[in-house]
């Protein structure tokens, strides 16, 4: 449990409405120094609206929000001077060079040119863009631009780094480099807040996260805790001939009559178009038990539960938009 003094952000009943639409619906959370905190949720869940309120560029409609001990409406400039922001859109000036972008941004914080120059060299080294310092931004790849935005967000040595979907649209290599850099920041004690709809990203980076859906917080905890609470340790994925799925599911239901008695008991069964998912403590035993019922799946796969299982359970498989 964190002590009061270390709480950097506290929200109580935080709400944001745009006209008749409620984007964020009375959420509570708090964030301690040094934490990596994630907002997970489908598109339109209210993640970005929450981030914009934390970034002091969107006044809350109602509820309480305290950032670094201050009220964001009254002390926006003072709070923003202590934040680093990686917005969803890069907001780089693509016709300026890499270092000019850092110069322009550093001046927004009132930093002297010598300080900006010194930090620019260090930050470009950190995000592996030193050799592109004098190049225009326009021809850089998406991953490079993202890294440049991360470097830019650190120019004021922020207390809190806000990252809105930091790796959306990047290829796997570029994503891994971004994760690597964010992980290093986290190790150095930088407080991170990020939104994502990538479960692997959340599992890799977040100490604690909340799952948002339709403006509300559906669940909160560490990735492990959430998997423990909302899913089973393992998932058995079975494929049958399409059309046999419902029938197979009915038979499999027999495995769940007395859950807890056997390791192989099915705690939940989900029928999808292409496969049947059986949530269980021990996938191999469940598979044995299924075969015992005379079921012969075309393919079978036993895997550990992931955050994605939690996410889909909490936010559903339907499109939210």
């Amino acid at each position: 449990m964190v002590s009061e003094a270390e709480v950097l952000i506290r929200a109580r009943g935080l709400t944001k409405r745009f006209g008749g639409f409620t984007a964020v619906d009375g959420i509570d959370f708090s964030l301690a120094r040094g934490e990596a905190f994630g907002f997970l949720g489908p598109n339109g869940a209210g993640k970005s609206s929450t981030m914009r309120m934390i970034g002091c560029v969107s006044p809350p409609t109602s509820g309480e929000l305290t950032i670094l001990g201050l009220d964001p409406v009254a002390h926006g400039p003072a709070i923003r001077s202590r934040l680093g922001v990686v917005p969803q859109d890069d907001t780089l000036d693509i016709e300026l060079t890499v270092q000019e972008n850092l110069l322009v941004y550093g001046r927004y914080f009132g930093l002297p040119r010598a300080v900006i120059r010194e930090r620019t060299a260090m930050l470009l080294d950190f995000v592996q863009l030193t050799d592109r310092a004098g190049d225009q931004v326009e021809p850089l790849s998406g991953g490079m631009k993202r890294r440049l935005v991360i470097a830019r967000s650190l120019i004021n040595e922020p207390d809190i780094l806000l990252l809105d979907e930091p790796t959306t649209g990047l290829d796997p290599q570029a994503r891994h480099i971004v994760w690597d850099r964010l992980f290093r920041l986290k190790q150095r004690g930088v407080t991170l807040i990020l939104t994502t709809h990538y479960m692997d990203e959340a599992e890799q980076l977040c100490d604690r996260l909340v799952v948002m859906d339709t403006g509300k917080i559906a669940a909160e905890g560490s990735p492990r805790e959430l998997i423990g609470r909302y899913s089973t340790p393992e998932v058995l994925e079975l494929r049958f001939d399409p059309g046999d799925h419902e029938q197979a599911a009915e038979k499999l239901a027999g495995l769940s009559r007395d859950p807890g008695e056997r390791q192989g008991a099915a705690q939940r069964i989900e029928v999808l178009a292409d496969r049947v998912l059986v949530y269980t403590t021990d996938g191999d035993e469940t598979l044995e038990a299924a075969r015992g019922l005379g079921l012969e799946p075309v393919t079978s796969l036993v895997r550990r539960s992931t955050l994605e299982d939690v996410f889909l359970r909490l936010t559903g498989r339907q499109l939210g938009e």
Partner: protein
Amino acid sequence: MTAQATRPPRQAPVAPGAAPGGRWAFAVRELRFWLTDYRRTWRGSVISSVLGPLLYLGAMGAGLGSLVDRHSDARLGGVSYLAFIAPGLLAATGMQTAFGESMYPVLGSVKWVKNYFAAAATPLRPSDVFRGHLLFVILRLAMNCGIFLVVIVGFGGARSPLIVAAVPVGVLTGLAFAPALMAWSVTRARDTSFSVLMRFFMIPLFLFSGTFFPITQIPAWLRPVAYVTPLWHGVELCRALSLGTATLGGAALHVGYLLAVAAAGFAAAHVSYTRRLHE
């Protein structure tokens, strides 16, 4: 250690009044963005700022003027057509520069480059972003009106040394338009209405606000329309300064009107910038 900037953050509490400097100190930070940005395009921009007055004064002043002057008319105040239109064109340049600098660059700042949003994530307030950009527009106004003055003098179109004062009046004429245009442009999602505004608002103003012929030539019932347009006030005052006919009362009236219109736009821009950048 790779970066000092990434070390564990210090524990120092944030002082609420931590932002140094007054309102305009923050605006200057935004101005400096525009100056850095302008370093890329200043050459082309200066060339067109020189070419514009050369073409206008060459074609209308020297060319058309040679015809007009043959039928010299007292309604032009007994001066050459060139001397008549040159100060009016200077004021009109203020207006045109304001249109050029206050529509596409503002829309681009929220739609394409998104530099307004980058700035809004920093200590700058929406009003600082607006004021800083406006400072840059004023600089561009001063540039274009100053260049225009030099070209007028080169063409021999000045009748009084007071024409030097037409530069700040030209800037003020632009300033009567710029804040209101910025206030409106920042709310736009598309640029489709910009060309409509140019064609059906700016060009009619340009043609009928007394730049090319005295306002007495248009029907009496239509004249009040000209009187409320900022451009007419700018044209009248610039011309009076250039011809040496300015009176203190008249100048105060024109300046007062232009300032009032500018102030209204300024207030509107504060509201619309805050709405757009702090949604």
